[in-house]
């Protein structure tokens, strides 16, 4: 079982690779919509990437209001 920190780190790596930004520019508690400059359709891509990588299902409604990587990691962690 991954630790919460490992999950968070993997999410940062996935986001950095998918949106082609240096991982060091991504911070766990910052608003990823602003940091990545992504719209709703790209957010769905990130959701799909996370589901495919962690082999989990993340219902969209559980992600309403989630805008930082740490909160996102918590949502993933409870489904691992």
């Amino acid at each position: 079982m991954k630790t919460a920190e490992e999950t968070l780190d993997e999410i940062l790596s996935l986001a950095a690779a998918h949106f082609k930004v240096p991982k060091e520019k991504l911070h766990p508690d910052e608003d990823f919509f602003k940091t990545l400059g992504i719209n709703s359709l790209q957010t769905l891509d990130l959701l799909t990437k996370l589901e495919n990588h962690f082999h989990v299902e993340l219902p969209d409604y559980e992600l309403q209001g989630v805008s930082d990587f740490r909160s996102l990691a918590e949502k993933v962690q409870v489904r691992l």
Partner: protein
Amino acid sequence: MSPSRGSVLSWSVSDGVIELALHREPCNELGSVSLEELERFATAFQLVQAEAHALIIHSELKAGFCAGADLRELYQRSQAIEKAEAARGVRDFLERIHRVLNLIDAAPLTTIAAVHGVTFGGGFELALACDLIIADKMARFCFPELRLGLIPGFGGIPRLKRDLGNAVVRDLLLTGRSLNAAKAQQVGLVSQVVGEGEALRAARAAAAQLGKFDRVTAAAAKKFIKPIPHEELRREIDLFCELFARPTVENGLRKFVESADAQPYLP
């Protein structure tokens, strides 16, 4: 069938395979221009379908297959005219798009939706009219209509119910959550999941295989196994129009159109 390049969709035929490509930015939202071009395609399709063995529908846009109905156009049009006239316009739009989708659904050749990315609402319904859905692993499927106070109106529920168990249909319809391609394949919605950017290639390979079979036999097999749920499709139009008359819908559409939310596509 001569190749045709419209403003929002294009089609061509090669080796007995018709390809219909969607290309309206940002994500192939289906509005009045899309409907007109779909109707033009439908007319041409009827003339050529006896000579072809497969139809592939796909999107040329990176964002996805199709994000569904053009809600901005729907809202703006409904605001510009009297409510009764808007209601008549909605029914007319639904009747027309049902005719196109019923034609694709019942076509005497095999139809394949090659999807990627967003396959939501009306886009999902377009895919459901096809015989096979081949999805790239980044595809997502969703019926977000309930957040607007509506149900899917392009035949989605009867067609989904035809293909899947009622529990899955209720989950998708009542929660409005989206499914990824792997889950969609697991529940029986998608026939093949392929790598990113590979859906059209896989659809072409499937179409080439279909070309090896006798067309009359293939058409008979399809007709036998894929009944068109006409009665439920008709009831869906009536229910959609009944719900559209409620203030909830106007409020929901306004909220969507005016939203600065970073996630307006998420239910």
